[in-house]
């Protein structure tokens, strides 16, 4: 329907500009949105304080610090004569990142392997999938201390146990999407492989896995996020001081004195989560060599 293509979206948006221009446009719209959010924050703050409103919550220096104060606090020491907050947080972030990266690697590989296994057996799927789904309803935070202590008694270092928790949250989306992706191969392509008398392994690696890549990458994006959350959440009850979880607990204690520190920690945690997510996007673009499937 080439004629319809002429008739349709050509009046405007689909003129292909250079990728640099597209990136620039995207970066500027993100910057614009962030600036708008900053403006909204300060406006809300100003209005609520001015009008002395108490719903939904009281607004003051503690509950809603100025954004510039939050960013500014990064470049001040978090305690007297100590290192700059940003150094402290970056160290913590790196520690958590290590846990999350290992957790992600474990979770993604186990998830993928499990997915491959399940994709080949309807019986296994029916028997096991409900429990895999149910496993995600167990509040990880409650189990975390048991995992850490249990593995610790077997001589596993603290942070590796946190990686296990991180893996627990990451494997699920990868498993589900791997099963779906492997089953999504075009039936005609399958017939083609059969006509070549290709064995099941060949079919797996040459056809099913490549056609499952969009699904798998979509899940990896989710898993990347989940791995960071898992790492932070895993640190919390395990009294591990080195990571972002520890930083949150620490600054939470002194929140009323120095609220900006906790906000800044959240900011760094957010950036960590986003950077993991973007890292997977970048890898996907390199591996799949086309635009990622509509992101989420």
């Amino acid at each position, binding site marked *: 329907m080439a*004629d319809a293509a002429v*008739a349709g979206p050509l009046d405007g948006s689909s003129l292909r500009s250079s990728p640099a221009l597209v990136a620039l446009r995207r970066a500027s719209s993100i910057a614009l949105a962030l600036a708008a959010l900053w403006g909204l924050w300060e406006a809300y703050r100003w209005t609520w304080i001015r009008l002395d409103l108490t719903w939904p919550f009281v607004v003051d220096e503690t509950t809603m610090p100025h954004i510039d104060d939050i960013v500014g606090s990064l470049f001040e020491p978090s305690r007297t004569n100590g290192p700059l907050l940003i150094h402290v947080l970056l160290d913590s972030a790196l520690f958590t990142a290590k846990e999350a990266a290992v957790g992600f690697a474990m979770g993604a590989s186990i998830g993928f392997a499990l997915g491959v296994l399940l994709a080949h057996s309807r019986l296994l799927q029916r028997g096991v999938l409900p429990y895999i789904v149910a496993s995600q309803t167990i509040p990880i935070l409650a189990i975390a201390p048991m995992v850490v202590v249990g593995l610790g008694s077997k001589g596993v270092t603290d942070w590796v146990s946190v990686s296990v928790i991180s893996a627990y949250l990451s494997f699920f989306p990868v498993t589900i999407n791997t099963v779906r992706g492997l089953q999504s191969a075009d039936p005609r392509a399958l017939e083609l492989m059969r006509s070549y008398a290709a064995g099941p392994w060949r079919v797996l690696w040459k056809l099913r896995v490549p056609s499952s890549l969009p699904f798998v990458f979509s899940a990896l994006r989710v898993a990347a996020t989940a791995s960071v959350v898992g790492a932070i959440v895993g640190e919390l009850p395990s009294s591990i001081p080195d990571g972002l979880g520890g930083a949150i607990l620490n600054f939470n204690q002194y929140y009323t004195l120095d609220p900006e520190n906790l906000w800044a920690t959240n900011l760094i945690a957010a950036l960590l989560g986003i950077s993991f997510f973007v890292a997977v996007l970048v890898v996907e673009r390199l591996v799949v060599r086309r635009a990622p499937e509509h992101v989420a």
Partner: protein
Amino acid sequence: MNADAVVSIQGVTKTFAKANVTALENISVDLLPGEFVSLIGPSGCGKSTLLRVIGDLIEPTTGTVTVNRKSAHEARLARDYGIVFQDSVLFDWRTVAKNIALPLELLGWDRRRRAERVKEMTALVELSGFESHHPWQLSGGMQQRVSIARALAIEPALLLMDEPFGALDEMTRERLNLELLRIWHQLGSTVVFVTHSISEAVFLSTRVVVMSPRPGRIRGIVDVDLPQPRTVQTHENPRFFELVTAVRELLRGIESAEEDGTLESELLAAEEAT
């Protein structure tokens, strides 16, 4: 301009500024009531654009379009035409009956009237008994029949069809061609039919409008004087071959007029292949 015309197109030009494309240039043609007119031409000749201009789905840059003695815009608001696309565009969440009833709901018909009309329409396209089926349970040909039934549900004077059988296999196509002609005879509507297939165009139409691309212009109009009603035997009529050749020559003429040969004559190649 012919005062009796159902559709009158005068000096219509359509340019897509951003893409710097002139899809249609100075198109003028009148379509008389009860005609079956095909639009045929290579990719980019603007036939689908022209169809949409008639349907007021695209606004012409210059020129006027009169449908049923109103402007195209008023005609659309008065729901004077039904449209069928290449993709049947049926709503998955509705049964066949409810899909056909869609325009009737929009017009505010009451339940009883809707049910009656749906029954008539399913009988017309020979799908009685499939009212409670869902689109995915039907074959491509059946889906298109539902799409045609929906387009005709409000008994419009004009039927616009954009390569409706393009996605179907040859045998289903031929069968649906005959059905479409039967329906056309029964209802006496005017049909504007966009197609890629020369033989289909000649078989179905009273006139074939051949268009050339870049910019989209009318290259020529072939009067198809084959006897009505058309049947399977029509294909074997020597006059049929003459007319097909005439259309083909017009299309070839387009190709030889294009010096650098970038014109795709896909449809000619397709005709050659079949």
